[in-house]
C-alpha cells in the first residue's frame, strides 16, 4: 500500500453560511497536491483543519499516519507551514521570531535557515511590519523549510510574490521533492502554478470536493472538444463537464477525451485540456448548474 503523507476522510465542519461537506482525499508521500477553488470554497478551512487550528465535527485527518488531534504535537513536528497571511508579531524582528520558533523543532537546521535567508535576501534585523507581503512569505518559507519537514502545507504561497520569485519557488519546491521525497499540499488560485508542479489536483467548491485526480489523468483522460456548435452539441451529455462559446464555435470540457473522439470522429478537434481550462470550465458549469449536484470525480 502507498504510504500516505496526508489522508482526510469524511471531514466535516460547519460555520454560519458555510459547510465543509465530508471532505475526503489522500496525498501519497513524495508528491505535490494543488488544492484549487474559488474564494470561499473551503481551501483555507481544509488547511486549518489539517493544522488542527479548527476542530472537525466529523471525520478523521491523518498526517504521515498520525492522528491530527490525538497526536497533534507529533504530527505538527513533521509539517512546515506557510499561511496566506502569516500571523507573525509585526513589531518583532525576523531574527527574534526565528529564535522563538526554532527551538520547537528537533531537526532545526540553522545553517540551512541562514542559507535560505541569504538566498531570499531576508533582512533578519528588520521587524516583520517593515516587510512586504512577498518578503513575509519568503520568511515563512525559510522557517518552514529549515526544520526538515516531511510535509509542507502552503496556503496561497505564491500570492504577493513577484513572477520571477514565484517561478523560482515552484522550481525549488519541485527540486526539493525530487531530491528528498517530501510531500506538499498547496492551495492556489493560479492554475499555472498547478501545471508547473502539481502531481495531484483537488478542486473544491462550496465546501465539497468536485475532483481529485492525478496530473496524468487530467492530461490524458480529460479533453477539450472544439468545433462548431452543432457538431460539438452531438456529444453525449454524460461526457460534458463544462462548455464555453468561442468566436469560432464551442469548446466542451469532457472527462473522457477518447470517448469523445470515438463519438464525434473528425467533425471536431479533441485537444488536451489545460488545468486552467478544466478549472475555469468546471467552475462555469457549476455556476450554470450544468453538473448534477454532488457529482464527484475521483482518481
Amino acid at each position, binding site marked *: 500500500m502507498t504510504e500516505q503523507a496526508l489522508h482526510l476522510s469524511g471531514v466535516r465542519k460547519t460555520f454560519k453560511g458555510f459547510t465543509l461537506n465530508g471532505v475526503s482525499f489522500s496525498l501519497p508521500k513524495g508528491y505535490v497536491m494543488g488544492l484549487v477553488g474559488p474564494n470561499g470554497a473551503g481551501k483555507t478551512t481544509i488547511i486549518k483543519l489539517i493544522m488542527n487550528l479548527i*476542530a472537525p465535527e466529523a471525520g478523521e485527518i491523518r498526517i504521515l499516519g498520525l492522528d491530527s488531534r490525538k497526536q497533534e*504535537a507529533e504530527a*505538527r513536528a513533521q509539517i512546515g507551514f506557510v499561511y496566506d497571511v502569516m*500571523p507573525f508579531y509585526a513589531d518583532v524582528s525576523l531574527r*527574534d521570531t526565528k529564535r522563538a520558533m526554532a*527551538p*520547537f523543532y528537533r531537526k532545526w537546521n540553522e545553517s540551512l535557515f541562514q542559507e535560505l535567508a541569504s538566498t531570499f535576501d531576508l533582512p533578519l534585523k528588520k521587524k516583520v511590519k517593515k516587510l512586504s507581503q512577498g518578503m513575509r512569505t519568503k520568511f515563512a518559507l525559510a522557517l518552514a523549510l529549515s526544520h526538515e519537514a516531511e510535509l509542507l502545507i502552503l496556503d496561497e504561497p505564491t500570492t504577493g510574490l513577484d513572477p520571477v520569485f514565484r517561478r523560482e519557488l515552484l522550481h525549488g519546491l519541485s527540486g526539493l521533492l525530487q531530491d528528498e521525497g517530501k510531500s506538499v499540499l498547496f492551495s492556489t488560485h493560479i492554475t499555472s502554478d498547478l501545471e508547473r508542479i502539481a502531481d495531484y489536483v483537488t478542486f473544491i467548491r462550496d465546501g465539497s470536493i468536485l475532483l481529485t485526480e492525478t496530473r496524468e489523468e487530467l492530461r490524458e483522460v480529460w479533453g477539450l472538444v472544439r468545433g462548431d456548435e452543432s457538431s460539438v452539441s452531438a456529444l453525449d451529455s454524460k461526457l460534458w463537464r463544462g462548455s464555453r462559446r468561442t468566436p469560432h464555435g464551442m469548446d466542451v470540457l469532457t472527462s473522457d477525451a477518447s470517448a469523445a473522439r470515438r463519438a464525434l470522429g473528425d467533425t471536431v478537434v479533441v485537444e488536451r485540456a489545460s488545468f486552467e481550462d478544466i478549472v475555469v470550465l468546471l467552475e462555469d458549469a457549476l455556476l450554470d448548474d450544468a453538473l448534477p449536484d454532488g457529482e464527484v470525480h475521483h482518481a
Partner: protein
Amino acid sequence: MLKVMMKDLIMNRTALVANLFIMGGFLVFMSSWEEGAPVGTYAFFSGLMMAFGPVIIVTREDKFKAMALGCSLPVTRETIVRSRYVLAIGLAVLGILFAFSLAALAPTSELSAAELFRPKIVLRALSVTTLLFALLLPFTFRFGAFGLILVLATSQVLGIVALTMVKLTRSSVDKRFVDSIGRAVGSLYARLGPVGFDLLLAAFLAAVLLASYGLSVWAFKWRDL
C-alpha cells in the same frame, strides 16, 4: 513548556519591560504619598498592576492574531495553556518582588522593606493576582482579548445592578454580605493563627488556579482559530 514560555517572552519582551517600568513608576509614586499608603493597599495595587503582564501577552497575541502561529507549532494546546499559567504566575511573583523592592529602595518611599516583605503582605499581593488570573484566563483562552473585555464589562454591569438594587430597596444587604465575609475570614484567622491561615489561603489559591486551569484546557481545546 519552557519553549512556549520563551516564545512568549521573546515576542512580548519590549511590551513587558515597558509595562514593568510604567507600573513601577506609578507604584513608586504611590509609595511616596506624604500621608503614607497603607502597606496592605500597596500590596493590593502591586498585585493588581503586575497582573497586567500576562494580560499584555494575551492582548498582543490577539492584536497580531498570533495564537494561530503558536498553535501551528509542534506543541499541544494543553501545553500552551499550562505554559501560560506558569508564565503568568512567574511574571506575577517577579513583578510583585520588583514592586516591593522599588518601594523599599526608593528614597521618597514611606514604606520599608521590613513592612513589605512579610509573608502576609506578599501573600495578599499574590492573592489579588492569582484570583484575577483564575477569573480572566479561561475567558481569554476561549475568546481572546474579547474575553478580558467580557469579564470586565460583565463585572461592571453586575456591580451597577447590585448597587442600584441596594439603593432602590434601601437594603443593607451589600454591607451585611461584606461584613459576613469579613467575620468568616476573621474567625478562621483567630482559629488557625497567622501561619495556619496563610497556609490555608495558599491552598485555597492553588485550588482556584487548578480549577481555572482545567476550565481553560477544556475551553481552549474547542476554540477555532
